[in-house]
């Protein structure tokens, strides 16, 4: 058996995936374990889980594949600063420390982290490989898809250089076709508007998408005329004078703000109609670009299957439009389309391209319903319930389904924790909060009392697959909640009064028989559920339909605002206790909020962003402190300064230093106060010196070099717009199997 471990880390959404002979054994995001949203640290816990699931140690893994080429990324960073100097100093100071300390030496960093995890020598580790960022995205989409021939479209913010790539997958081969490079990025364009609308970049994009149906597309022409040059084939270049993300600390420039008539909306401030109009406008532009690119691919290759990945592929409204326009016969989107899914793609590339293993037989779902994460048996769950003194009841499966169905029918909100955790950003029925979509109140109840979030965002329906077409304008399987479809007209309620209402008040108007999942434009983000994709959830939906004639439930992720989806029974219980959730159905157990004797205190997670504490110091650290400072004092004051002054070396300094070091070696704990003061001094010096050193590098090295480059009209960012050109697409270079061995 051949085991391949795929890793994504150090940017956002760290994750690990384990393949065994090309099949996914386990996959998980690090954030679920550390409870730190979008955790970018090395995925220690996710790797441990994957290895544990397979029952192997790291030494039994044949290849480890990282999802990114660090040298190419550094090249892009450096050339971006060369192209924009001298205006990018703050961004340079912000970005460089982590590169110069860690990311430039990523190979070593990875090996050190892995050897620490496996408690082995670096030399005993499996071979380390590197796929490119978009190659990993493309592989995660194509090899996991049900197709043996497909074109792949990857759209995200940026990887190394590429922001948009097209690929042709056939059998076990995945060949690059063309690409668009940084800074011309659809993902970053969407993120710029996310920033401008007052949401957080890299996590607030789905809020902007949820806001769009409230708006009118008033700014589409303005965007197309000023912000980008969009060609007929869907390729584009951004006018970088409107953006600041290449060299600044913000996404948009003052020129952008002047164009739209105001500064960016302040986070958490009231959302205005113009914010909604802007959201709608950029959504329309995004859809137009995706459609044009897809049409070009279809026309040029003739292939009828399309796979998609990259952060933009999570824009399920654009995906729904692709389906509606029938550009391709079949469309499949990788459920972990963001960077976490890169770990899967990296592992797949090693299996199919590096090891040249034959393509998998076309089957409906290599992703196994994305149920690839941790699971807990009843024994482990009951242990947690007992330790928290919870009042609960245990049921056989049939009885559990019956009782939960009844609670849902009574408009109670149910935390549903069953089976293996999902991989990717969506909860698909194993770590979900469920509710009755027929209820007019359920939207507000779950949003405000449980999720603690803005009330403008709709919930997704999980619907029985065989009933989906009766309720929605959808004729494909959508097990991963990645396509938006319109509710059937006969399920909508004709409410003339609703048309007179503006803004968020529109959401409160009953627009359909299932108001809690219907957005103001009568659309819904549909998840179809089959016995094959999730047997237990399917049975629950079947029960609910039998009781209510409604074949769907509200399905939203089991978490509160700002926290990752729950991973363990402990996480689920904490989330249940600190919200107004009514029922927790966890394994074979049902916990009712009303049956708990008293309001239980909820443990608070540590904020992991704090600085390293210097109070708890080991004797070893103190001895090292005494020894190293003694040596440094001897060298500087005993040798260096006397040499500088042309005098004899100062032997008394050596004596004092030796006494100091001896004191530290014999009585280390007595040095603790001095150590703390010294280290605080070091931290202050570090904060002063880091920007100073980087400013010197920037002005003495980067800026002159950048100016020389510009003298020779060399722009690595290709910012010039060319109205006469037919396309901005660039031919991609062929990739050889052994390219995976290089970090570039």
């Amino acid at each position: 058996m051949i085991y391949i471990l795929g890793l994504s880390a150090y940017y956002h959404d760290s994750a690990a995936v384990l393949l065994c002979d090309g099949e996914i054994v386990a996959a998980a995001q690090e954030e679920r374990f550390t409870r730190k949203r979008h955790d970018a640290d090395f995925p220690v816990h996710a790797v441990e889980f994957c290895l544990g699931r397979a029952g192997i140690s790291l030494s039994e893994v044949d290849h480890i594949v990282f999802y990114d080429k660090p040298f190419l990324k550094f090249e892009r960073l450096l050339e971006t600063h060369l192209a924009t100097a001298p205006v990018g100093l703050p961004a340079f100071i912000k970005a460089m420390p982590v590169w110069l300390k860690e990311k430039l030496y990523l190979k070593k960093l990875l090996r050190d982290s892995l050897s620490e995890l496996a408690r082995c020598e670096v030399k005993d580790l499996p071979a380390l490989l590197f796929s490119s960022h978009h190659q990993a995205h493309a592989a995660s989409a194509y090899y996991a898809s049900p197709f043996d021939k497909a074109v792949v479209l990857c759209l995200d913010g940026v990887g190394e250089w590429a922001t948009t790539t097209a690929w042709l997958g056939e059998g076990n081969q995945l060949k690059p076709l063309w690409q668009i490079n940084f800074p011309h990025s659809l993902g970053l364009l969407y993120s710029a508007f996310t920033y401008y609308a007052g949401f957080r970049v890299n996590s607030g994009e789905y809020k902007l998408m949820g806001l769009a149906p409230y708006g009118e597309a008033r700014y589409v022409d303005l965007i197309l005329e000023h912000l980008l040059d969009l060609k007929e084939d869907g390729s584009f270049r951004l006018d970088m004078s409107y953006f600041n993300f290449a060299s600044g600390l913000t996404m948009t420039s003052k020129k952008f703000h002047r164009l739209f008539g105001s500064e960016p909306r302040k986070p958490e401030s009231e959302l205005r109609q113009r914010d909604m109009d802007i959201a709608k406008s950029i959504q329309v532009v995004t859809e137009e670009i995706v459609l044009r690119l897809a049409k070009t691919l279809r026309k040029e290759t003739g292939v009828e299957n399309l796979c998609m990945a990259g952060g933009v592929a999570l824009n399920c409204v654009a995906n729904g439009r692709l389906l509606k326009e029938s550009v391709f016969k079949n469309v499949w989107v990788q459920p972990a389309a963001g960077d976490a899914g890169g770990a899967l793609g990296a592992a797949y590339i090693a299996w199919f391209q590096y090891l040249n293993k034959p393509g998998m037989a076309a089957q409906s779902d290599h992703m196994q319903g994305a149920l690839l994460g941790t699971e807990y048996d009843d024994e482990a769950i009951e242990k947690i319930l007992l330790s928290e003194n919870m009042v609960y009841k245990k049921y056989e499966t049939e009885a559990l389904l019956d009782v939960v169905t009844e609670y849902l029918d009574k408009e109670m909100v149910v935390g549903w924790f069953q089976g293996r955790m999902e991989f990717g950003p969506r909860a698909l029925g194993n770590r979900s909060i469920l509710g009755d979509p027929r209820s007019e109140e359920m939207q507000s109840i779950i949003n405000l009392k449980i999720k603690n979030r803005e009330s403008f965002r709709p919930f997704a329906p999980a619907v029985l697959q065989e009933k989906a077409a009766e309720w929605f304008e959808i004729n494909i399987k959508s097990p991963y909640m990645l396509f938006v479809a319109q509710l059937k007209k006969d399920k909508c309620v004709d409410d003339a009064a609703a048309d007179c209402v503006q803004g968020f008040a529109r959401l409160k108007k009953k627009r359909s028989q299932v108001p809690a999942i219907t957005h103001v434009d009568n659309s819904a983000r549909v998840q179809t559920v089959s016995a094959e994709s999730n047997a237990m959830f399917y049975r629950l939906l079947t029960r609910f339909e039998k009781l209510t004639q409604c074949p769907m439930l509200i399905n939203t992720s089991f978490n509160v605002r700002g926290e990752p989806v729950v991973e363990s029974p402990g996480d689920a219980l904490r989330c249940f206790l600190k919200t107004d959730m009514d029922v927790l159905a966890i394994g074979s157990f049902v916990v009712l909020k009303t049956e708990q004797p008293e309001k239980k205190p909820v443990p608070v997670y540590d904020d992991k962003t704090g600085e390293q504490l210097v109070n708890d110091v080991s004797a070893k650290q103190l001895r090292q402190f005494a020894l190293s400072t003694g040596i440094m004092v001897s060298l500087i004051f005993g040798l260096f300064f006397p040499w500088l002054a042309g005098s004899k070396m100062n032997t008394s300094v050596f004596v004092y230093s030796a006494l100091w070091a001896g004191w530290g070696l014999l009585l280390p704990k007595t040095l603790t106060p001095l150590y703390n003061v010294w280290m605080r001094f070091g931290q202050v010096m570090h904060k002063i010196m880091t920007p100073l050193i980087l400013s010197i590098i920037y002005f003495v090295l980067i800026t002159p070099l950048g100016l020389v480059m510009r003298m020779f009209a060399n722009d690595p960012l290709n910012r010039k717009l060319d109205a006469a050109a037919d396309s901005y697409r660039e031919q991609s270079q062929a990739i050889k199997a052994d390219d995976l061995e290089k970090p570039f």
Partner: protein
Amino acid sequence: MLEFLTDLWQFMRARKKYWLFPVVLIMALLGALLVLGPGSSIAPFIYTLF
């Protein structure tokens, strides 16, 4: 470090961007001052001297 320099050189050759080598090297050397970081007890000496 040797492996890093070898990788760096091969990278420059593959990308035909030899001019990047001294830039990256100078940055890596000066960056070593930052590598000392706030957790090292000799960092204050180095920073003061610098």
